[in-house]
């Protein structure tokens, strides 16, 4: 038994929850349906039994009537025989009418029972005989009267007795036949009542049994349900623990990165200072001796190597620390409402010298309206600078970098497009990964760490933004930053700024005449709103 239970539980456990739930619900439902059908069947059987009993009782009643009619006929005839009064013949006459009808009804009632039909035919024959005898007796009596001519002629007692006795035998036989018939019917009735009672008992028993089974099934279902619930709770708890553990691990990793980066700074600082102090000492010794020794230039280049490597290392540590710090979304106190248009135009001015130094050109296409975003301006600057640095690093001299800022639906979009070497298709999905380099040799020459784009993407994501890139090898790349726009609060836009906006709008119109770069996107609904506000004021 225990083994079976275990085997069942083994079969049960791996079932999917959907199946288990269906089974649990199916158990009581099945029990209910079985009980209902069993009950209906029992009810139908009982009704049939009842019909049969009624049928039998009707037969009984009819038989009794037949017997009574027969007795009435006999009594009527006898009374007439004794008294010669016609009124005694009334029961006889009515019985005469009644008996054949009664017999017909009986025959039709017991039509399903051939022995009883035979019996009825026997009875019919006997009653017919009886009636014939009664008729003969009556005709005899009447003819006797007509012969004697006197109504009150005394008939000798002996004759009367004989007359009365005549047909008694047939009458008894008829009675006996009716009794036999009745006995059979009685037996049938008893049998049917017994059958009904037995059925009733069985029905009760079955109902009780089914009720018990249903109850047990329901309890079992409840138990299974409990078990399922417990299992689900266990699973949830397990998931929670796993989740907690993962979170911990993640936090630990983040903290480790932060700690490690922090701890790495101290020795780096010492190495850097030492090398630089060494270089200073070297400067002095070279100043003292007009002709520096050969080894001194060797020492100098080595010290300078140490300095540049340490600086590189420290940039890397700084970048790692930065990545570790800005893993999650920015908190509300770290962001402020900034005008992206103003920021970007400032950056463009700042970068012009750098661009010129690399023999590149930089152009920008900025909207005439402020694009307000919720952002940390320092981080945003870092992100866009990384993109920009990337652009000039991989764009050969004579190339062009183009910045395009516009709003699209509820997003501010900043495109940084270069005419550089481009990124191979297979690398596009990887460029945002930390330390990934498309061409390691080349990157080393340009001095990148392989973290710039990762940092850029992380910053943008921390602002609930998104970065996309398209590129064609040999033609250049376009990085696009999407940042959610803040709803422009009309109250903050005073009449002065609105005025300047309208002036700007004119310049946009002028620009569109000669240049196709300013598209209609920059003149969006917000500008129209501002204009109408201006008109009202």
């Amino acid at each position, binding site marked *: 038994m225990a083994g079976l239970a275990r085997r069942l539980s083994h079969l049960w456990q791996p079932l999917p929850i959907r199946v288990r739930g269906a089974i649990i619900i199916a158990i009581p439902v099945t029990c209910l349906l079985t009980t209902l059908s069993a009950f209906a069947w029992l009810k139908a059987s009982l009704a049939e039994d009842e019909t049969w009993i009624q049928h039998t009782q009707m037969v009984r009643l009819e038989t009794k009537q037949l017997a009574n009619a027969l007795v009435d006929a006999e009594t009527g005839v006898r009374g007439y025989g004794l008294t010669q009064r016609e009124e005694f013949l009334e029961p006889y006459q009515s019985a005469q009418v009644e008996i054949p009808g009664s017999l017909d009804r009986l025959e039709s009632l017991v039509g399903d029972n051939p022995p009883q039909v035979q019996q009825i035919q026997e009875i019919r024959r006997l009653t017919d005989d009886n009636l014939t005898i009664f008729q003969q007796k009556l005709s005899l009596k009447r003819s006797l009267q007509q012969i004697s001519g006197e109504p009150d002629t005394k008939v000798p007692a002996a004759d009367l007795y004989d007359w009365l006795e005549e047909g008694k035998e047939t009458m008894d036989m008829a009675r006996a036949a009716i009794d036999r018939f009745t006995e059979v019917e009685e037996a049938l009735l008893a049998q049917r009542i017994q059958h009904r009672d037995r059925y009733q008992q069985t029905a009760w028993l079955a109902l009780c049994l089914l009720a018990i089974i249903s109850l047990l099934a329901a309890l079992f279902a409840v138990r299974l349900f409990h078990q399922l619930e417990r299992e689900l709770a266990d699973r949830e708890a397990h998931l929670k623990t796993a989740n907690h553990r993962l979170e911990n691990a993640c936090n630990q990793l983040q903290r480790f990165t932060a700690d490690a980066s922090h701890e790495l700074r101290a020795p780096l*600082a*010492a190495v*850097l*200072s030492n090398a*630089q102090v060494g270089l200073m000492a070297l400067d002095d010794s070279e100043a003292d001796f007009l002709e520096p020794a050969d080894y001194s230039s060797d020492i100098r280049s080595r010290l300078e190597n140490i300095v540049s490597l340490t*600086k590189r290392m420290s940039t890397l540590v700084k970048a790692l620390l930065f990545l570790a*710090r800005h893993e999650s979304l920015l908190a509300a106190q770290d962001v402020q409402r900034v005008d992206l248009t103003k920021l970007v135009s400032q950056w463009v001015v700042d970068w012009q010298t750098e661009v010129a130094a690399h023999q590149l050109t930089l152009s920008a296409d900025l909207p005439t309206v402020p694009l307000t975003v919720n952002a940390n301006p320092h981080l945003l600057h870092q992100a866009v600078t990384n993109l920009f640095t990337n652009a000039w690093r991989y764009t050969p001299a004579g190339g062009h970098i183009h910045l395009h800022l516009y709003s699209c639906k509820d997003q501010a979009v900043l495109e940084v497009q270069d005419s550089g070497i481009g990124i191979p298709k297979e690398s596009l999905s990887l460029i945002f990964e930390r330390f990934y380099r498309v061409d390691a040799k080349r990157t080393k020459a340009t001095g990148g760490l392989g973290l710039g784009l990762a940092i850029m993407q992380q910053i943008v994501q921390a602002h609930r933004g998104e970065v996309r890139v398209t590129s064609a090898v040999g033609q250049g790349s376009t990085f696009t930053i999407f940042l959610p726009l803040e709803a422009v609060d009309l109250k903050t836009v005073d009449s002065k700024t609105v005025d300047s906006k309208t002036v700007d709008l004119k310049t946009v119109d002028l620009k569109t005449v000669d240049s196709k770069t300013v598209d209609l996107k920059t003149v969006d609904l917000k500008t129209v709103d501002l204009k109408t506000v201006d008109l009202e004021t």
Partner: protein
Amino acid sequence: MRILLVEDDSDQLEPLQAALTHTGHVVDGVEDGTTARWLMDEKEYDLLIFDWMLPGEDGISLCQYYRQVGKAAPILMLTAKDTIADKVKGLDAGADDYLVKPVDVAELLARVRALRRRSPLWCGDQLQVADLVLHLDNMRVERGDHSLKLSSRDFQLLEYMLRHPRQVLTHDQIEQSLWEWGSEPESNAVTARIKRLRQRLRVLDAHTWIETVYGAGYCFQPPAS
């Protein structure tokens, strides 16, 4: 210039101290906050450089303490803490400048020069007495057509004398001003340094300007022209 440099990591303290000394400053380097606080009370400094995290007392409370007692010398925070919030906290505590490690020595020296310029006692990048000019930024001394680069030790002594011309400076005063805290100068150390400086100035024919005042000390006395 006399500088108090507080840095708990001796590996970092030593090269910075060397660099600052090398550029002609007298640097008291200490590794804990408690000693630093005691020195701040005992001595006058022209510049203080604090690390943030220190045993004993941290750089921020040293800063606050220094400002509370009413001293005005510039303070430079030199720390690995690099967030904006940290910088704000450091500057609000009373620091005049904030540098994040690892720092480029050239930048540190430039910042030190910049802070020196902000001192109320600042009178240009050079000191002049009669026709003798001492350039503070490159430690060269100049008279007429001749110029000469001084070692940091000679520069410190000459700077000190030029800042107090025509005053008798005792052995003790010189020792207090030019020797780092914790160093034990030998009894004839001052004499030896005076002697060496005179030798260096011989090229400029200014060696006689340092006069010995018997029984008292020395006096920088340019000839009355």
